[in-house]
């Protein structure tokens, strides 16, 4: 009973409910939602935003906000692809990932230094660095669309299984990159829940002064968070190139806001200190369903944007309202005391 009550209070529960209702609605209208190939397609389009969301959420929980991760991903992806093409690389795709992660880390370190050492506001820092990263890519590296190295193509085409839709004569492949997403999720989950570092991230986001007094190394925590985001963004960039089978320098830019919105929609508090990975993933799933499947209802693309915006407003509005209500309840119970 108590557990059920707690469940009803959770944002995650309502997001899941919305996804299910939306799914049933689409299924009823088109009969095409709960089909193998649609579900595989949805998963496929979730991979990149979901990876981004892991890092974005960690920053938000720590009390900051990072809008540079798509720029980091783009530059890491572009630099790696270019180098691998230049040397006509034929080895394992792991090197591509190692390089992507390394470039991501370098850029993360820059954010970390500016934020942890100089205590500049996180939004301003990441807006600035994001602009620098894009500038370097377009100016210094003269970015334009590139093909990708053969090992990356092979990896991008690799599939776990295919789902075939008899009715539409379409088949969709479940990409191997899904496994990478799952691995990242497990790592992030472990860090956030089972290490003092992870609890420190929650603590710093909840109250930085208290965290300092308790003995957390606040500086190190900030540094870790921005470096982690850098690494994850680098890996995500490579994943994106592999899955698209080419390297487009700028088409990731702009996704950062959608990802942050999905994270917040999933119950992560913008003010920091609170949020679950389950919520973030459900948030990403809902956004993906909105942008992929509304078309099955015959809703034109531009309306999808309206719907997505409305869901964000309703979703975040509801959780904000819940916070206000629980505060009010607290006031009345205190009065009763």
């Amino acid at each position, binding site marked *: 009973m108590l557990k059920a009550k707690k469940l009803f209070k959770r944002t995650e529960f309502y997001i899941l409910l919305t996804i299910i209702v939306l799914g049933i609605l689409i299924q009823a209208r088109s009969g095409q939602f709960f089909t193998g190939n649609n579900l595989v397609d949805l998963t496929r389009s979730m991979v990149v935003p979901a990876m981004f969301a892991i890092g974005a959420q960690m920053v938000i929980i720590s009390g900051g906000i990072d809008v540079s991760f798509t720029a980091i991903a783009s530059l890491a992806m572009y630099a790696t692809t270019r180098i691998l093409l230049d040397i006509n690389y034929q080895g394992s795709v792991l090197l591509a990932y190692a390089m992507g992660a390394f470039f991501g880390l370098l850029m993360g370190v820059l954010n970390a230094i500016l934020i942890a050492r100089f205590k500049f506001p996180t939004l301003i820092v990441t807006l600035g660095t994001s602009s620098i990263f894009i500038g370097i890519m377009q100016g210094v590296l003269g970015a334009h669309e590139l093909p990708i190295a053969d090992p990356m193509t092979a990896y991008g085409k690799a599939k776990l299984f295919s789902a075939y839709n008899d009715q539409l004569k379409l088949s969709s492949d479940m990409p191997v990159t899904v496994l990478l997403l799952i691995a990242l999720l497990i790592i992030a989950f472990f860090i956030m829940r089972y290490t003092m570092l992870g609890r420190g991230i929650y603590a710093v986001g909840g109250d930085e002064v*208290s965290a300092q007094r308790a003995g957390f190394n606040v500086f190190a925590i900030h540094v870790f968070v921005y470096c982690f985001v850098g690494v994850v963004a680098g890996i995500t960039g490579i994943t994106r190139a592999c899955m698209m089978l080419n390297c487009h320098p700028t088409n990731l830019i702009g996704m950062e806001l959608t990802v942050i919105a999905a994270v917040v929609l999933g119950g992560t508090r913008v003010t920091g200190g609170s949020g679950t990975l389950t919520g973030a993933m459900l948030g990403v799933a809902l956004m993906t369903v909105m942008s992929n499947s509304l078309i099955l209802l015959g809703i034109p693309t531009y309306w999808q944007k309206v719907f997505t915006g409305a869901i964000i407003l309703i979703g975040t509005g509801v959780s904000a309202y819940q916070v206000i209500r629980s505060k009010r309840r607290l006031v009345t119970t205190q009065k*009763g005391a």
Partner: protein
Amino acid sequence: MSDYILRVENVKKSFGGVKALKGVNLEIKKGEIHCLAGENGCGKSTLIKVISGFYTADEGTIELNGKKYARITPAEAIRQGVQVIYQDFSIFPSLTVMENLALNMELMNKRKIVSYKRFRRIAEEAVSKIGFKVDLDELVENLTVADKQLIAICRALLSNAKLIIMDEPTTALTKKEVKALFSVIKGLQAQGIAILFVSHKLDEVFEISERFTILRNGENVATGNTGELDRAKFAFYMTGREFNEEPFEPKNIAGEPVLEVRSLSLKNGYRDVSFKLYRGEILGITGLLGSGRTELALSLFGIYPAESGEIRINGKPVRIKSVKDAMKNGIGYVPSDRLTEGLFLPQSISRNIVVSKLDRLSTKKMGFLKNKEIAAEVEKWIQDLSIATNDAARPVQTLSGGNQQKVVLSRWLATELSVLILNGPTVGVDIGSKYDIHAILRSLAAKGLAILIISDDLPEVLFNCNRVLIMRNGSIVNEINPRETTEKQLAEMATDVS
């Protein structure tokens, strides 16, 4: 072994030329409840930080458990059993009770990996020390202030505390919660733990502590047994000023009531409230938290409009449905939480003073501000209310509580006001400023303003009002004459359960 857990000898500390501590002594015996009192800026907080190792003293020594230190690190202070409970409790609102209790301990033990089993064991041990019943899986942000404080106390006990320093622990607590806290403190004392209780509230000092030390301007002014202290001495030691606590006598209460309330009701607030308020009067309303006193004040100021009943101003019935209505009818309100409801904290003192008069201080047509006149206005109020600042351009949050309250007051005084409602006018204000504020209110009443003070500070209403209404469970249950009523009688009437 020494009888003393802590001896501070001749400690001096300055910050860039400002001498915060000018040779302070403080001695606390084992298992003693000792009160450290003093006005804002007297050096209390600095002294606490020196004892807990966050500041290094320029001169002097600190002796803990008989061991002398010229400088002590925070870690060493903790090892010697010193624990500080800060005003904000240093808790993590978005984490569970269990984690809040266990994290510090785990960090001290340099753990890297979390074990929720161990967390729970530590948390259970912590709450058992004072028999605190709480759901360990609840988020701390959902707890009351008093419970948050108990969590901070439990956490302090985990690290084998011998001296717990509590920095103004009762500021945000209700009377009942203060009682509960005091019994916890007594329980700790029984376990041999010494408490340094930092407060500037006289009643609390009398009730809880055995000995006291009072600081003023970074120097000791008095130390001794609390039994030898009385109200007048306490106020004198704190401020260095003599106060004569003459009860308030209204000068010229005349004619029609300025404000008359007839069977006013608000669901879940108060019901059937009627009273009259005359020119030159200071009327008190007291009652427990939840008695409806705050709701009544908010209704009169139009924030929670009343649902039935009548409000008359100067004999004419008026509708007060919004703050604008209230202001139009000459009603001003000073809220209880000036920090969130009354002031623009990061803004300058001068802007805070003139904000409600900008209509008058700007050009008629385009609304440009007349800066010269604004400056004159600000200067006038800083003088009149003796607001302690040398630069009105500084943010209002840099002022002490008492001076902030004066800024809130000044804002109303230039407007055409006939009724001023104050909700807890001196909550969190030090003694000196408290007297200043009371004096201001009295002189305003003498000039013909009708004043309504809502407060649970019983001495405050007894000394400063000529009539006091008592509210209980949403109704006015009694009206008393403060000259013929003692504090004890008033307290009984306010809490009476029979």
